[in-house]
């Protein structure tokens, strides 16, 4: 009886092992899931909501929506954003006004928490799906988001005033 039990457990064990081998063999012939990264570059994109890097969209006249209110800078938990402003005389009204000089973004210390984009009252900044951030020096991680010579989009309201 004991011997029979012994043989039975061995046979069941072998059967279960074979079952496991069947599963691995099943996966052996299944299509593979590996993504071939540099080859599929430009063919497969991350989903559109992915937070790759902070960007500031400009329109065709090289204008952006940032009013340099610095809310993003205050909200950023890591000091990633630096809004540098300058005083500029408005041509229509003749008043001196604070405008954006440089919008500095250090992607090296960004944790992609998206508080900046959520809190921006003008929706001036948004996320791009660009994810290839590797560079050779740390200095290259400091980006300037507004383009050279860009200016604030003139809204209808402002011109009416």
């Amino acid at each position, binding site marked *: 009886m004991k011997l029979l039990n012994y043989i039975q457990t*061995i046979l069941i064990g072998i059967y279960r*092992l074979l079952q*496991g*081998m069947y*599963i*691995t*063999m099943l*996966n*052996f012939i*299944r299509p*593979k*899931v*590996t993504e*071939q990264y540099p080859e599929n570059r430009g063919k497969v994109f991350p989903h559109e909501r992915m937070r790759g890097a902070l960007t500031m969209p400009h329109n065709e006249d090289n204008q952006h929506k940032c009013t340099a209110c610095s809310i993003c800078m205050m909200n950023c938990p890591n000091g990633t954003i630096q809004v540098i402003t300058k005083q500029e005389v408005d041509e229509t009204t003749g008043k001196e006004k604070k405008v954006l000089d440089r919008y500095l973004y250090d992607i090296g210390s960004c944790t992609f928490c998206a508080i900046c984009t959520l809190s921006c009252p003008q929706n001036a900044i948004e996320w791009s799906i660009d994810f290839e951030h590797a560079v050779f020096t740390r200095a290259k991680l400091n980006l300037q988001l507004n383009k050279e010579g860009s200016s604030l989009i003139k809204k209808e309201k402002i011109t009416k005033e």
Partner: protein
Amino acid sequence: MFDFSIVTAWIDHFLRTYLDEGWALLVEFVLVGLVILTVYAVLALLLIYIERKICAFFQCRIGPNRVGPWGVFQSVADMVKILLKEIIKIDRADPLLFRIASFLVIIASICTFGAIPFDPALHAVNFNMGVFYLLAVSSLGVIGILLAGWSSNNKYTMIGAMRSGAQLISYELSCGLSLMSIVVLAGSMQLSEIVNQQAEMWFIFKGHIPACIAFLIYLIAGHAETNRGPFDLPEAESELTAGYHTEYSGIQFGFFYLAEYLNMFIIAAIASTMFLGGWMPLHIVGWEAFNGVMDMIPPVVWFFGKTFFCVFLALWIRWSFPRLRIDQLLSLEWKVLMPLALINILFMALCVM
């Protein structure tokens, strides 16, 4: 059917026409040694590539695919890299033993490799007690592993080496016993003789159930001999980081690595020689036409086909199962495999009588 004996005979004749017999033999020995070393290295690279590719396929991956088409030169690139690596000096290690250990392992493996009959003519060492020689030499490797673990001055390597000592010595037994049952069947220990006896029918068929059981035991025990999963306790990546060769680097590590892969091949080669007829084509008594077709395929292809089939089995098992614990490992050997192998020899003897 291409016969390698033409080549070997021609070389022999060529040398003897120009040199004395002694000198000719010496040159032949050196040549044979060089060929064995080259084949050893090339096979190792091939096996590493095969293993990585097959393992990847089992895991729903593609595996190496960057160096060369389908990544075929990946292992060559790895070899170049490992040759360029620094050999790190271990603080307070035993320098002599530390260096010897890796050589011991690889020498044992090469010596075994030399005795394998690849082809009727490609058989470097053909003793009349070949099986005994194989067992004796292949078990020398454990000394290297023990020394490596001991001399590294590291607790992980120490545990790994002790595990490996317990494992290899105990599995050596059922390994030998299962081969013995074939020796009983063949009535000879000479490898060429054993292969020739399988001309009519391979031993795994000829020996009925005892031969099948012996084959199974040999596969399991041999697999354990190679220190590969699920019997990879001496290395136990997730427990002991790399077991006995944790502290090795560069080509010294490469020796362990090569030996590991070649041992896998050697175990598969012995299994195919002893049970599956080695280089002998598949013959069925009475089916002359079929046998004729089978004979068209060169023996080297038969040998490597069978061996790689066994290698594939080993890989399949390795990448399917979790690792055993040390007490399970030993009770599997002493409570299951060894008694089974002993009884099996008895049955085999009865069958032969």
